[in-house]
């Protein structure tokens, strides 16, 4: 059974979103996603300053098995990326919700979080996966 923290929001494509409460959000991939992928060996992150649309692919995580796109669940500007992952992509396997975060977005004014899933709704998706 994978870990799904109740305080986070989720997408069907297995990203998690933490509302940092100051107009910014932190984004990563879920415990379920890292488990499906297996040992991660490479991460490609967006550039700080990039503007992303909701649903745009903006990062790539690659495991021993496969490459997987990571989509930004929200519109906004990339304000920080987790550079420590370049040398230690396995951090995502070890700590997907804390040290293994991917990037932070400053929400655009039009940004909308209403389409994101609660922990319960995400759990329901994982169950059929």
């Amino acid at each position, binding site marked *: 059974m994978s870990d799904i923290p109740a305080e986070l929001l989720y997408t069907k494509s297995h990203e998690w979103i933490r509302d940092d409460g100051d107009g910014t959000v932190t984004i990563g991939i879920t415990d379920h996603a890292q488990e499906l992928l297996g*040992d991660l060996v490479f991460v490609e992150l967006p550039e700080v300053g990039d503007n992303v649309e909701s649903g745009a692919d903006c990062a790539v995580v690659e495991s021993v*098995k496969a490459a997987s796109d990571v989509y930004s669940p929200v519109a906004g500007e990339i304000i920080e990326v987790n550079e420590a992952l370049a040398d230690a992509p396995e951090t995502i396997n070890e700590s997907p919700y804390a040290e293994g975060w991917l990037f932070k977005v400053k929400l655009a004014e039009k940004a909308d979080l209403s389409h994101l899933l609660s922990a319960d709704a995400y759990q329901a998706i994982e169950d059929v996966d």
Partner: protein
Amino acid sequence: MKHTILNSIHREMGGRMVEFGGWDMPLHYGSQLEEHHQVRRDAGMFDVSHMTVVDLKGERVKPFLRMLLANDVDKLKVPGKALYSCMLNEDGGVIDDLIVYYLNDEDYRMVVNAGTTDKDMAWIEKHAEAYRVNVTPRRDLAMIAVQGPQARDKALPLLPANLREFVADLKPFQAAWDGSWFVARTGYTGEDGLEIMLPEEQAGELWRKLFENGVAPIGLGARDTLRLEAGMNLYGSDMDESVTPLQSGLAWTIAMDPADRGFIGRPALEAQQRKGVEKQLVGLLLTGRGVLRNHQKLFAGDREIGEITSGGFAPTLQTSIALARVDAGALDDIDVEIRGKRVPAKVVKPPFARHGKPLVSV
């Protein structure tokens, strides 16, 4: 889906099961990377019971195999000695790659790939008839590969007492046997080790005893990265019936001498040699960022020159490596297309790693 006799033990030991060539096999038991390092540094075991052991017997089995295989079993003089060979069709295309063991002049044993077993058996039986060779797939045997620098020391005490002394003295690519137990100093990892064929009903007990003796179970994922680092081809990825051994880095496995040995595929190989071999299999080491994957396209300048046949992350080298089929001729630095971007890679000669050590560097 087919199950090996060890299927329930894999599940019990936490194996993440996947379909492979029609078989339900463990991909890994938790971490593919840790399993890879375990084999390079200590000892691991693989269930390879999905592969097929085929016994060939008869007065004319030797001339039969000299006709059937591209390598020459006449090289095998010592009982138990093994030979790696391709089995070709008339066009020189690779039907399968295999290991053949010499037991005596009327008795040989082959181990063929799982996914190709049906077509291999049909091909072998079709040609065996004229030589009156008896062909018997040994579905009653399981096979466990124990690989790594500590593999032989950890496995030896668990073998039948009357085999131990012989197995302890085995040279690489040689086997010893007693009854239905057949133990060879061979493998597919680039490490020392043994491949143990034994009666199915005894396989579970051996697996558990190996585990108690510190030999970790290893899945197909690490098996693939270990063999790739060792520069060994994978049938179905690096070669198949559409290419010849000459285009697959396997020229060393073709015995053209003596010139009068007529093996299946020989005329096609000779014609290809006369015309010039247009493709070659090379090793690649990624110097830029990313991961090399099967079927990524390769470029020299603007010219597309081929594609990756097996690519992945190499845990021993901590970078990405690949085998690739490219145009013949000298090559130096090339580019790989990864998700639309060109990333530089260096052409190197496999193997990439052996006996725990990297052999190439960026």
